[in-house]
């Protein structure tokens, strides 16, 4: 049956329910586009045949292939759109710089889209809250205090805090830091928020 490849793409993405981004399936997309091209060409020639030779019995077949074309189109649109939703979520969860492992899972157009999204969001955040702008990806939960206790889960190197002091984030070391400075590192899994 036609359109099996296209549904396979959708299934592959649907299996990852928690929003992870699997590698862009370039080969799968190519195969679907090839099938669409073949369907389109067969239909073109049958439409001509039906017209010139008055073969109206071909019409159900033409309609059949046309359904398949539209179905393939829907699957690909759904696949690409859902990936964009996942990529957008990455900006909120990881911040504006993505780890290379994830970048490898994106195609060139998706990387470009991510950069554009990042820019729009930055422009918007700069326009908020006076001259300084406002980082709306921070304080997703209401903060209880300005400073929090954190533990390093891995070596992260030197880290500069507000007053210019530089501290060394070494695995298993514990620190008392401004919350807004560590929120992103916690989300990235570098630090762990310690609650007594």
């Amino acid at each position, binding site marked *: 049956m036609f359109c099996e490849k296209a549904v396979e793409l959708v299934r592959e993405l649907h299996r990852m329910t928690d929003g992870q981004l699997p590698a862009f399936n370039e080969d799968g997309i190519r195969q679907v586009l090839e099938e669409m091209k073949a369907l389109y060409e067969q239909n073109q020639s049958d439409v001509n045949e039906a017209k010139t030779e008055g073969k109206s019995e071909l019409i159900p077949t033409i309609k059949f292939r046309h*359904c398949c074309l*539209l*179905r393939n*189109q*829907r699957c690909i649109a759904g696949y690409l759109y859902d990936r964009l939703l996942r990529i957008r979520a990455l900006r909120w969860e990881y911040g504006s710089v993505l780890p290379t492992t994830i970048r490898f899972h994106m195609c060139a157009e998706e990387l470009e889209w991510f950069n554009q999204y990042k820019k729009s969001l930055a422009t918007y955040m700069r326009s908020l809250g006076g001259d300084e702008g406002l980082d709306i990806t921070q304080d997703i*939960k*209401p903060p209880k205090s300005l400073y929090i206790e954190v533990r390093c889960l891995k070596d992260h190197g030197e880290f500069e805090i507000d007053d210019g002091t530089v501290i060394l984030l070494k695995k298993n070391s514990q620190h008392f830091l401004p919350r807004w400075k560590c929120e992103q590192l916690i989300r990235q899994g570098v630090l762990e928020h310690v609650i007594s």
Partner: protein
Amino acid sequence: MDPSEVEFLAEKEMVKIIPNFSLDKIYLIGGDLGPFNPGLTVEVPVWLALNLKQRQKCRIVPPEWMDADKLEEIREQERREDTFTPIPSLHYMELTKLLLNHAADNIPRADEIRTLVKDIWDTRIAKLRLSADSFINQQEAHARLDNLTLMEINTTRTFLLDSLNCMYKLRSNLQPGSGSGKAHDY
């Protein structure tokens, strides 16, 4: 909504404290607070009360309803009646947790209060489930949520809304003619 956001809203509730320091009136966007005089009762929002308490600058006076005898009465009434009884504070759950965690030494019979409030909560949540079921069973179109608190609504909100959406979906199937629309999803 995350429960931490519900708790954040509860922190705006006013509570009485007895400070052990002096400070003139302070002017904040949310309103003026103080003045503070040692030994004199003053009303402040819960967030400030907890902050002062943590720094040992005050004693917190528990709200009137946070009293084991009164809560026991409420618990009995809640168990007796089928409907949700009016609760003395719309943030009873959050305030109990906040005040008992940070100022248990200022609240008499703190452990009893903790258990009582938990009992009241459990009774009410069981009622909420029961009424959700009969709501679906009788295919009602709207519900009155009298006397429910934000935290209670919040724990079942998405579930209830999703259930109602399902109901809507399945009920719209019954409408004759709704299927005559073009079926062109490929």
